[in-house]
């Protein structure tokens, strides 16, 4: 594999460097179908331009999904966009936007297991693509909130109807958002954090 001279490797811009005091990081995963707005959401709140990490998926994973590569391909690359928010001088939050298909998840060690929680981003035009994602998160015990990205031409359902359709218990927040707007994306993350906090309070009591 070609590797360019290390001098040409672009690094973080000076203003994008973390302080040396940065001791630990936490992560939140934004999961949803293709085109639902994961990267837009990451970009709207990230302090750095969203970056892309990738992983190689070998032949074993191919053939399950018609969208991927030609038959002759032996490996395919799965990309994941992410962004960063400095919480304090010591603590950093990373946001990962990941495809909904679970077979991508295990490519990255502990992507969900170690995450504080997840945001399931849904498009009401294709609600059913998020069903499996929610089921997988439930099975893994990953706490999540549901954010409905409001596309202009998407059907609008009352939250109660959506909750019934998604078979979600009362305590799981469902909210509308416009991920292009920083304030709206931040509200989604705040809703997740408040939900996690309520779980922590409840957990401490039991």
């Amino acid at each position, binding site marked *: *594999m070609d590797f360019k001279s*290390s001098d040409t*490797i*672009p*690094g*973080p811009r000076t203003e994008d460097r973390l*302080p*040396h005091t*940065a*001791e*630990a*990081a*936490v*992560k939140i995963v934004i999961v949803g179908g293709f085109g639902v707005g994961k990267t837009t959401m990451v970009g709207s709140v990230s302090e750095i331009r969203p*970056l*892309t*990490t990738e*992983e*190689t998926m*070998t032949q*074993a994973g191919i053939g399950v999904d018609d969208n991927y590569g030609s038959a002759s391909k032996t490996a395919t690359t799965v990309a994941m966009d*992410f962004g960063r928010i*400095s*919480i304090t001088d010591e*603590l*950093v*939050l*990373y946001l990962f936007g990941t495809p909904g298909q*679970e*077979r991508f998840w*295990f490519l*990255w*060690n*502990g*992507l969900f*297991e*170690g995450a*504080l929680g997840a945001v399931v981003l849904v498009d009401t035009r294709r*609600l*059913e693509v998020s069903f499996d994602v*929610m*089921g997988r998160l*439930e*099975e893994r015990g990953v706490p999540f909130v549901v954010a409905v990205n409001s596309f202009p031409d998407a*059907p609008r359902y009352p939250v109660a*109807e*959506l909750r*019934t*359709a998604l*078979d979600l218990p009362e305590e799981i927040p469902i909210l509308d958002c416009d991920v292009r707007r*920083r304030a709206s994306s*931040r509200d989604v*993350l*705040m809703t997740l*954090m*408040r939900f996690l*906090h309520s779980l*922590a*309070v409840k*957990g401490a009591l039991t």
Partner: protein
Amino acid sequence: MTPPQRQRRSTGAASDGVPAKEGELRNPERLFVIGGEGGGERADLDLVTLIVARADPPVSATPEQAALLRLCAAPLSTAELSAYLSLPFSVVTVLLTDLLAKELVQARAPIVRQKVADRNLLEAVMHGLQKL
């Protein structure tokens, strides 16, 4: 118009259809070329493990190692290293395993979700988000 209907699942009810260790399968050629020798053992690194260089690149460092060491002069997550180096995450972990063994970098482990989350941590994150 009614939306389509989903069925809830419960924790641990997973038949867990994860193909056996599929994530462990790598492209051996690439790994060998970039990761060098060392049996392919990898340190337990998360996407958000922060990496900090402890020293300047030694003369013996490969171009990839030297680039990586220069990048993490200030703390940088493994995900960012993967992005800036345009290398798959697994390849970066192999490179880092070697650099950790040689004590050329330091790894700062992430805070992962506990059964009962640390409320102080959650409050700190909320406080940080409010400033956005």
